[in-house]
């Protein structure tokens, strides 16, 4: 695996053999948008809920205010209410977790998408670039024109990771492929994740110019990308969850060739489970291809025919033959 | 529109025991007035006597607290002006009620629009207005924007508004305050015509001569209540004034000259273009430049205006409103950029800011006190500071000297008889006359070298008028130079040492006030008499 942390031990092993323990109180603070975003936050919640049913945890989840100014306070309120462990969802929690961790040294924290920065903090990192690499391989292989696109919601470093992996994946198949890249808003203006209309305009242009497949990492704006693909009778690649399943519009489902999965639910659940097993923080757990923390969805079976190629690429990455860049 | 048969027997309007209280003031108390149909009925009274309030009640704009109103013998109760309009009452307000950005036509038809297929039928409206204008001798261009009109035209639009709605009872609240004698005469001609058609007119004015000239009956209101009903044939203006205030009618006349040889203010070739200020090319004399502009067909608001005012002299500027007076005083104050040169006590102040001009001793009584003279929502002592921000007693260093300002405001309140509960009262709570006295007091403080007095007594009652005139005269005797602009020709003739007439932005005549009549002056002002007459 890439990076210097330990790698998650193994796949979740189904129902836990341990008896539910009432003493496990897990607190979780969402990123802006909060629970019910059908995406990142909900994935984290799925992991939490699994911990509730499978590990018998008592859970509490809080959403920050619209401007996110109270992230740190949510963590403290959870800590004061004696929740342990506490999980912050999203890289924006990095600093706040660090501070809370020093204030509450007896509590274990985890932060999604950011590295550990204190002895009692576990960083839950995802190798989005690796998953995106596979998406790139799939796109380049499937695109007959040798022309693909990427739509990013907000030009933050996190989303640029997706871009970097995707570009590398495409180039690995077709070095001369044409890749259109467009972001919707600058870093700091998060409306780019909530602008299906802009996503549609950007993707439309790519399809008009001849792109066959467009990959998006644009939150709700991805909906516009799917619409553009449907209108152009072309394909798109979803992100985070298996969007062919989560998107309810039947006319849009068929255009979603595959989705780049980011198993935040797995990360959250595994962390809680490890905590229960007595694990301590201070290091990062990297959810990469090796542990299937990222990957491609296969619903619809559209990439079944190139499975070999994808598996080969995956193997190369897992084996360290290919190092996927995390920055464009 | 046949005349109401009842109107010939029943009084057109009967007001019985009308009482109206405002917070802090009882504006009307037990007012009784009977207006006979087909007459001009004048109502006179001091500022703040309650005339406008009474008329607003009659027009449904305000509800009386007590009392009854009968129109043509039937008791009525108005909720809104449309109820009053419904029974044939129309009102021309003391302050114009016109939307500046609308055309004359739009202003007239508003609320009573002719429609065709759901749209505004402008053609029909235009026809109707032209017809009305022709029959009543009220010249207007229906498609002009009201903001481009002079006051006389606006007054006509207001009257047309009322006639357009077929009103049989007209209320005119101080319609002549802004008109020149010719225009007043024209208006009166119109009123007489209306009267002969059987219309009833209720007429309010502070100009008692006018009242005596037009009215068939007069009601005097003092401090909110009716004190007398008189027959114009049986009283003189003086007696009327005494009824109003219990004091003698003052006169602005002063003949002994205090004019000195020293020039206080020297204005040369002041020129203002209508469409924005562009600097004169270097080295070109302003007169030459003005010629060029005139040849290019540019409209000049001020056209090469030059004059001197000596210490101890009052220079009166006569002119129909809208002929460049506003531009002249604003140019002298430095509020409006202009070509030409202005000197004060020999110092060229053309490039000075308004502030510097004020600091060097220019006082300014603006023509519209609400627009340029007061902060209505601020206290009296804060209003005292206005225009004196950088001078004692208002300032000390970067701070406002509140104590000294209040003390000095007390002085003004006392010296100028400003009727107010305290200097902390908001300016808007004062009646117009008292507001004006405060402004005059403020502008006279700090011993100005030169004073611009635009309509210093407009809308002010006779008592206050006399006091303001006295103050002006005293200051003049002490060497103050005054530029006086007034629509009240008696005031102009009585106070001025010299009169200049302004017409279309040019000074067209210089007259000696001692041998000019208001009528002749009016002739120059309206352009009826041309040419320059030196004295």
């Amino acid at each position: 695996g890439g990076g210097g942390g330990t790698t998650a031990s193994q796949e979740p092993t189904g129902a836990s053999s341990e008896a539910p323990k009432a003493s496990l109180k897990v607190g979780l603070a969402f990123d802006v948008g909060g629970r019910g975003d059908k995406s990142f936050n909900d994935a984290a919640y799925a992991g939490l809920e699994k911990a509730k049913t499978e590990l018998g945890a008592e859970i509490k989840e809080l959403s920050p205010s619209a401007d996110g100014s109270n992230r740190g306070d949510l963590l403290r309120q959870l800590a004061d209410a004696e929740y342990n462990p506490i999980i912050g969802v999203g890289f924006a929690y990095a600093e706040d977790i660090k501070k809370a961790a020093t204030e509450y040294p007896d509590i274990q924290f985890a932060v999604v998408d950011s590295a550990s920065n204190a002895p009692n903090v576990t960083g839950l990192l995802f190798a989005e670039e690796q998953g995106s690499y596979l998406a790139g391989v799939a796109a380049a292989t499937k695109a007959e024109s040798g022309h693909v696109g990427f739509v990013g919601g907000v030009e933050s470093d996190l989303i640029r990771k997706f871009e970097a992996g995707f570009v590398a994946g495409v180039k690995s198949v077709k070095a001369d492929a044409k890749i259109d890249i467009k972001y919707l808003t600058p870093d700091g203006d998060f409306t780019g994740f909530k602008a299906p209309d802009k996503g549609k305009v950007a993707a439309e242009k790519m399809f008009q110019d001849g792109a066959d497949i467009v990959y998006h990492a644009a939150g709700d704006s991805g909906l516009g990308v799917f619409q553009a693909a449907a209108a152009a009778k072309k394909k798109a690649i979803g992100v985070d969850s298996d969007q062919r399943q989560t998107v309810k519009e039947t006319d849009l489902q068929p255009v979603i060739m595959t989705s780049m999965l980011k198993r935040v639910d797995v990360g959250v659940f595994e962390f809680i489970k490890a905590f229960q097993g007595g694990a301590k923080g201070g290091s990062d757990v990297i959810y990469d291809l090796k542990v299937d923390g990222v990957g491609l969805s296969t619903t619809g079976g559209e990439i079944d025919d190139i499975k070999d190629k994808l598996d080969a690429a995956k193997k190369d990455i897992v084996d360290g033959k290919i190092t996927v860049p995390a920055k464009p | 529109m046949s005349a109401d048969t009842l109107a010939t027997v029943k009084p057109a309007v009967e007001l019985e025991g009308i009482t109206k209280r405002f917070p802090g003031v009882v504006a009307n108390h037990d007012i009784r007035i009977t207006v006979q149909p087909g007459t001009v009925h004048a109502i006179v009274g001091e500022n703040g006597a309650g005339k406008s309030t009474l008329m607003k009640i009659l027009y449904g704009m305000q509800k009386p607290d007590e009392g009854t109103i009968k129109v043509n013998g039937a008791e009525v109760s108005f909720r809104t002006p449309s109820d009053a309009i419904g029974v044939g009452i129309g009102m021309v307000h003391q302050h114009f009620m016109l939307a500046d950005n609308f055309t004359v036509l739009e202003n007239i038809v508003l609320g009573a629009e002719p429609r065709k297929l759901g749209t505004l039928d402008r053609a029909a409206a235009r026809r109707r207005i032209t017809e009305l204008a022709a029959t009543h001798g009220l010249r207007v261009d229906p498609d002009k924007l009201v903001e481009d009109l002079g006051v006389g035209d606006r007054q006509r639009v207001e009257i047309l508004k009322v006639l357009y709605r077929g009103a049989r009872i007209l209320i005119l609240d101080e319609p002549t305050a802004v008109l020149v004698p010719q225009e007043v005469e024209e208006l009166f001609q119109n009123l007489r015509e209306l009267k002969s058609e059987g219309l009833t007119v209720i007429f309010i004015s502070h100009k008692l001569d006018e009242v005596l000239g037009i009215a068939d009956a007069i009601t005097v209101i003092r401090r909110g209540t009716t004190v007398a009903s008189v027959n114009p044939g049986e009283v003189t203006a003086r007696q009327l004034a005494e009824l109003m205030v219990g004091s003698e009618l003052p006169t602005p006349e002063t003949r002994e000259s205090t004019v000195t040889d020293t020039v206080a203010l020297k204005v040369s070739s002041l020129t203002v273009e209508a469409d924005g200020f562009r600097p004169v090319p270097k080295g070109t004399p302003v007169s030459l430049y003005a010629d060029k502009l005139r040849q290019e067909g540019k409209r000049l608001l001020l056209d090469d205006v030059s004059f001197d005012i000596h210490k101890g002299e009052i220079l009166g500027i006569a002119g129909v409103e809208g002929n460049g007076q506003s531009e002249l005083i604003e140019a002298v104050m430095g509020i409006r950029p202009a070509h030409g040169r202005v000197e004060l006590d020999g110092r060229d102040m053309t490039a000075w800011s308004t502030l510097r001009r004020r600091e060097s001793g220019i006082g300014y009584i603006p023509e519209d006190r609400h627009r340029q003279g007061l902060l209505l929502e601020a206290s009296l002592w804060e209003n005292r500071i206005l225009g004196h921000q950088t001078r004692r007693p208002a300032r000390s260093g970067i701070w406002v000297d509140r104590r000294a300002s209040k003390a000095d405001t007390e002085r003004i309140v006392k010296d100028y008889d400003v009727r107010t509960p305290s200097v902390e009262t908001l300016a808007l709570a004062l009646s117009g006359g008292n507001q004006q006295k405060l402004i005059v007091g403020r502008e006279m403080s700090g011993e100005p070298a030169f004073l611009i007095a635009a309509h210093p007594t407009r809308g002010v009652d006779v008592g206050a008028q006399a006091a303001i005139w006295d103050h002006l005269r005293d200051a003049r005797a002490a060497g103050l130079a005054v530029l006086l602009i007034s629509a009240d020709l008696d005031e102009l003739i009585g106070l001025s040492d010299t009169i200049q007439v302004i017409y279309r932005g040019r000074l067209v005549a210089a007259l000696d006030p001692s041998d000019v009549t208001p009528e002749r002056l009016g002739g120059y002002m309206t352009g009826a008499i041309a040419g320059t007459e030196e004295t």
Partner: protein
Amino acid sequence: MPAGLNRALLTVAGAVVAILLAIAICSVAIIIAGGSPLDALAAFFDFGTSERAQSNSIATFLNRAVPLFIAGLAVAVGFRMNLFNIGVEGQYRIAAICAAYVGSTFTAPSWIQIPVIIVVAALAGGLYALIPAVMKVTRGVNEVIATIMLNYIAINLSSYLVRGLFAGERAKTDVNVTTPPLPDSAMFPNLNAVFEWFGLLPPTREGGLWGFLLVAVVLGLGVWLVLERTRFGFNVKASGLNAPAALASGVNPKTMVIAAMVMSGAIAGLIGLPEILGSSGAYNSNFTAGLGFLGIAVALLGRNKPVGIAIAALLFAFLDRAQGALQFADVPASVVTIIQGAIVLLVVMANEVTKRIALRLEERRAAQQLGRNTPVEVTA
């Protein structure tokens, strides 16, 4: 003066009724949502059970009020002159990033370092506000449009800067962008001692009670002095009440527009500092946005006067603090926003109503004092 006292009492009564009404409206909403209004009410006053939690909650509450108060002041300065500075949002962002960066480039004793950072922030905010001001006085561009556009430009500019020119070091895996960290001497000492005076446990939250609170208080006093007691303040007031009269009195409207806008921008520049100098120590991805817009509400609720703004800021902060507590009580946290909106609207409505009631009362008094035929003048 009994009339004045009456009016003051009425105003307070009106505000109380308005707040009660806002609470009632939200209670209905909460009941509809299946929650319990009483639990919600308890949540607002639930500052935690342990002493430590309480201190932290108090600090959180006051820390939130500080930037809101400064934002309110910034907006109010413009409003006093009828200038609508919607651009506070952009001004404080630009100011924050410039100040954070400049502060990180050198190390000096605190008494030099901190003032320099504050001055840089004020300068940057003022300069950014100068743009719409100059556009207004030279080209007549409406400041509302200009500042709306400049807000977007500010977001982009700061995003560009924090990634490029002003970027700081960060871990390879860290996707947070940030300016270089400020030296310790730039961190504003906290006010935790205050808690000890009251015999409370000092807050343990990072940053504690932000010392910038003191700067805000001084700023409030300063703004009050400038607006209420100086010639400049008089000119601002005059221009706001009656622009033509101010012009005729010798006030230069162009200078005033520029001065008021720049002053507003300079104050706005300080909005981001409590957070940066109090705890974050850099401008980074977590920078709190949106305070400029909240500042408009705070300023208006506080009637553009420093004392009123302080009360409004405290009220907003008090409500905001409860976001977490409400969720513990299973009440949707969005009721906070609803209460805030409802309070703004209802308090000003109540204000208008009480003003009218006061007038009517005076009217009645006037009627009682009515002499025979003389109108009665009563002190207003």
